[in-house]
């Protein structure tokens, strides 16, 4: 495959950055998108160029590290996959592919296609956990009976890998789907109910402080989420928040 790549190049956080056009040949349809970028970078370096920086880690779709806004969509045109699972067979020979970093004020660009998603970590630190005394007689979680539907819904929410595709896809750069998944996974389980009030108030407060936008219910986040996190979680978080506000 011969492709034209339009890639966002930015030396560092202070640099203004710009889209740069490149040509690449010899790409196999069975390569993953990140393998294509590896081949592209090797070619670029062999010509004395600076390789394009991009985030990646497990390359199995479970770590949430890879990102990229490809042809106008987070993780590219395929559904239910991260960029590392996106394959070049989704594109045609001769295509032009636009590759940009995830855009949000809360996700500043570090270099080229790498963005700083620490805002998600800070939201998690604000309440995305349960406090368990681990010294002594820890109760086995499986010893507590949990309604099957609640367990399934909590697990579905917990599959969020925190990649930030929801923020990148949202026209408002809202982090509601991510925060809603993290709130929901605990709100549905007995272990999470104890700190439920503080959790939702603190996580939403931190989300707002990070400068994410508001939710317009466009549903773009749900469509682009590689893990298929449902909008139902946002409605649940809204209920949790309203109820917590009355108590808190």
């Amino acid at each position, binding site marked *: 495959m011969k492709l034209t790549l339009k890639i966002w190049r930015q030396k560092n956080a202070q640099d203004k950055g710009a889209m740069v056009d490149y040509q690449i040949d010899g790409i196999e349809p069975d390569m993953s998108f990140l393998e294509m970028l590896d081949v592209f970078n090797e070619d670029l370096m062999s010509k004395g160029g600076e390789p394009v920086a991009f985030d990646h880690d497990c390359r199995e779709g479970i770590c949430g590290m890879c990102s990229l*806004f490809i042809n*106008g969509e987070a993780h590219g045109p395929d559904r239910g996959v991260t960029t590392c699972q996106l394959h070049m067979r989704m594109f045609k020979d001769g295509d032009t592919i636009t590759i*940009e970093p995830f855009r949000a004020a809360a996700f500043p660009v570090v270099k080229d296609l790498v963005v700083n998603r620490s805002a998600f970590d800070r939201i998690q630190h604000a309440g995305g956990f349960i406090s368990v005394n681990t010294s002594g007689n820890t109760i086995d979680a499986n010893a507590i009976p949990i309604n099957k539907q609640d367990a399934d819904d909590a697990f579905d929410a917990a599959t969020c890998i925190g990649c930030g595709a929801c923020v990148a896809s949202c026209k408002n750069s809202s982090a509601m789907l991510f925060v809603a998944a993290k709130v929901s996974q605990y709100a549905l389980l007995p272990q999470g109910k104890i700190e439920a009030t503080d959790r939702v108030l603190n996580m*939403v407060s931190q989300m*707002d402080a990070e*400068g994410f936008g508001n*939710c317009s219910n*466009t549903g773009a986040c749900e469509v682009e989420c590689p893990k298929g996190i449902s909008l139902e979680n946002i409605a649940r978080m809204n209920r949790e928040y*309203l109820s917590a506000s009355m108590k808190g």
Partner: protein
Amino acid sequence: MAKSALLKSSIAKKVAMALSGIFLMLFLAQHFFINMTSVFSSDTFNSISHFMGNNPLVQFVIQPILIVGVIFHFTMGFVLEIQNRNARPISYAKNNGAANSSWTSRNMIYSGVVVLAFLGLHFYDFWFPEMVYKYVEVSPLDETRYFHELVAKFESPVRTGLYSLSFILLALHLWHGFSSSFQSVGFNNKYSRSLKAFGYAFAIVIPFGFIFIALFHHFNH
């Protein structure tokens, strides 16, 4: 959490936006049913209009609440829009929004601005003259004037066209706004599909019903 922080939170703003939207949709539905009577009976339209225009509860309690609701809804709409734009200072070179969301959901601010401009025209046409008639000139009560005032306004093809165009934009606004408002207040369950379908019907029947009323009086009188 302090009350001030609660009012500033993104979720509280969205819930407030949704509740004011639901309130305005209820108002829209009753306005539609009253206007629809003008198609069938000028007497019925006159008597309902007279009641609405002279009942103290409607005039001095419901009407101010409605005006506050309208002002709140569009002011909050602008506030949220500014915050949302600030949340992405650098736009994408290529953004395929149509791949994951509806046009109506992405353009609520534009459909909303057209509806707001329409409200300006609507107030100029009906509300201000009504206020002047009743409270400035203190004109005598006339229970039969409403139907003639309505028909007179729709003589103009330009006004009828502007009204129709505005209602198409209102239909687009409601197409997303109806179900979105319920999602914002946390309503997402087994009834959501039915509610969404009802919302789509509402978004078509009410605005296009208003267009029908405007065209009916334009072409029949």
